[in-house]
């Protein structure tokens, strides 16, 4: 019993008292305003751990898509999205499915026990799940391949890496960011009877992103005492003192998708309405952040595509160059040959730059440098945004 006592995180009387007295003068222990969110950093990892392989036995995913790493202050959550082809549910033969799994590692917080999911793990999963599913954020009908026979089952894994408070919001952002960058392989029907499913490799056909109608953003409020003191985005310490918590899931249009109220303390109606307005405002700014991060990632991904082509023929560069020259020669007679030549030259530059990048990247093998590189690449990507997309 004493080992367990030693492993639980606890707060002193001093801290509890201080958090409340500081809040009296509208101060929070990390220097924020009561209604301020912590910094959000969204990264997209390229290494996806191999999760349960698909039932039909295809290795479906290019490794970098559908994974996110979200930092909310010091809270850190990773999200991974995977998909597999399964038989759809009987009552919904035309729909794919979406499920959320959470992983609370004891590394993130000594209070988390390994094995059985705790109360908070279940709550977190349910809140994120409700926000995404009940509001029909992900179009599940488009996931159907063959009615009643095959549909994509999307699985979101949320890994809590570090708990510094407000896991729900961080996990929700991680789930959205991962969903936005996830791509599933394209499927077509073929064969003699037209009922045979062909799954195209990512090299053959560009994998398809999910259809996401809107982004439901969770915003958590914490209430202290009965005087209606309220803060947004509580930290770990604040969570320990709060009388009540409320998570409002809203989207940028101001629609409320879900509400979850935990803790014993009652909250007056006027404050709840105030919270709803605040949630909608925060949802808008967070949506912007997620979208801009995803955009940067997508640009970078598109540029990497070009790189991939050039490196795949790297062994026979001279031939490839020759091909290009041939191509150039072919179009010489054309009226718009000037334009195409310029394009080709740009492409060449691109591939050179890409290969240089690749060399400089080759020595950094660790995960962190991998992430750093992604960001760095994204930065340089901006400079020739208009280049290849012609």
């Amino acid at each position, binding site marked *: 019993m004493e080992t367990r006592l*030693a492993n639980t995180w606890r707060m002193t*009387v*001093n801290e509890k008292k*201080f958090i409340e007295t500081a809040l009296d003068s509208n101060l929070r*222990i990390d220097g924020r305003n009561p209604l301020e969110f912590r910094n959000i950093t969204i990264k997209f990892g390229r290494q996806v751990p191999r999760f349960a392989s698909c039932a039909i036995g295809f290795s479906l995913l290019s490794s970098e898509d559908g994974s996110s790493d979200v930092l909310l202050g010091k809270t850190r959550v990773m999200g991974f999205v995977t998909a597999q082809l399964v038989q759809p549910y009987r009552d919904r033969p035309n729909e794919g499915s979406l499920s959320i799994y959470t992983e609370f590692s004891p590394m993130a917080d000594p209070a988390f026990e390994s094995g059985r999911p705790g109360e908070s793990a279940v709550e977190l999963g349910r809140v994120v799940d409700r926000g995404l599913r009940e509001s029909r954020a992900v179009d599940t009908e488009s996931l159907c391949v063959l009615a009643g026979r095959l549909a994509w089952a999307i699985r979101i894994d949320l890994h809590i890496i570090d708990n510094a408070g407000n896991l729900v919001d961080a996990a929700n952002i991680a789930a959205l960011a991962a969903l936005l960058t996830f791509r599933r392989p394209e499927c077509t029907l073929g064969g003699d009877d037209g009922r045979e499913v062909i799954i195209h490799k990512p090299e053959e056909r560009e994998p398809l992103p999910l259809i996401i109608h809107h982004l439901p953003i969770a915003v958590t409020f914490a209430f202290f005492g009965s005087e209606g003191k309220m803060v947004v985005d509580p930290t770990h310490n604040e969570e320990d003192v709060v009388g009540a918590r409320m998570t409002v899931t809203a989207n940028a249009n101001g629609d409320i998708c879900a509400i979850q109220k935990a803790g014993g303390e009652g909250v007056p109606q006027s404050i709840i309405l105030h919270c709803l307005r605040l949630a909608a405002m925060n949802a808008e700014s967070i949506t912007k952040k997620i979208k801009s991060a995803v955009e940067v990632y997508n640009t970078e991904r598109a540029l990497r595509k070009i790189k991939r082509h050039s490196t795949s023929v790297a062994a026979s560069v001279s031939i490839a160059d020759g091909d290009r020259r041939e191509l150039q020669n072919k179009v010489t007679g054309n009226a718009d040959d000037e334009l195409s030549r310029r394009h080709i030259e740009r492409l060449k530059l691109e591939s050179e730059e890409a290969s240089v990048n690749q060399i400089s990247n080759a020595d950094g093998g660790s995960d962190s440098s991998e992430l750093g590189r992604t960001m760095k690449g994204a930065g340089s990507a901006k400079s020739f945004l208009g280049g290849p997309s012609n």
Partner: protein
Amino acid sequence: MDAKPSGLTTSFVNNLVVPGDVVLDISSMANQTIKLGGGLRQDSDAISVIKAGKLRFSKPNKYWVETSQKRYVPCAEDTILGIVVDSKPDNFLIDIKSPTLAYLPVLAFEGGTRRNIPKFEDGTLLYVRVVKANTGMYPELSCTDASGKAAEFGVLKDGYMFECSTGLARMLLSSPTCPVLEALGKKLSYEIAVGLNGRVWVNADSPSTIIVVANAIMNSETLSGVQQKIMVEKLLQKIQVNRVRFHLLVPSKSRYLHYHLHRHISEFDSKTSKDAYRDSP
């Protein structure tokens, strides 16, 4: 006795060592007594490292490995901040961020007798000294110095306690006063108690000062001395601007050009710091 470290060690002292490094060969130093601190182990004649960190040497004969981590490995004569978890008839159970709880005997207070056992509610913050830290036993704490005086040990009231790495705690206690504390002390008046187990308690007149000090300290983990000073200056400037904006006048009291500092020199000998000051509880 020759106090110089043997040839083998000099290359390791103040350098990074990793588990498995043999830093001392005591067969060549037959007549010397050496004292080993945390992170070192004796395998017959070889002293090897069991923790990654910096090897430290203190004259005449002490060796230990310094690391920065979230958990604390108790070491005798460290002064630390503990949280009362439970009260037993003979002992208080104290959380000191170590793998096990520590015992604080109810009589380990100045003039402590069975009749005047102090009462602590759970969650009370105490400034204590580690008396015993043997493997396989719960560490034992005391609220007195080696001579039985209360010194500055005891309950820390009010204020705010936050956790940091053991490396940062050691930096705050290092003997030319840590630049971040110095820079803050020039503008603000505050009290601070640093525990070697990576807990820091800060108290001041106004909550805003406490928050500024606490955040400045937490930010300085990876900064050099000069960077720390710049960071503090920027922070204070920002605060000043904010205060004007919100018409919160700076009380003239908080412009004292001094600060109180609990200091502990991180060595194995118990030293009562001369310049330490705190209201006795």
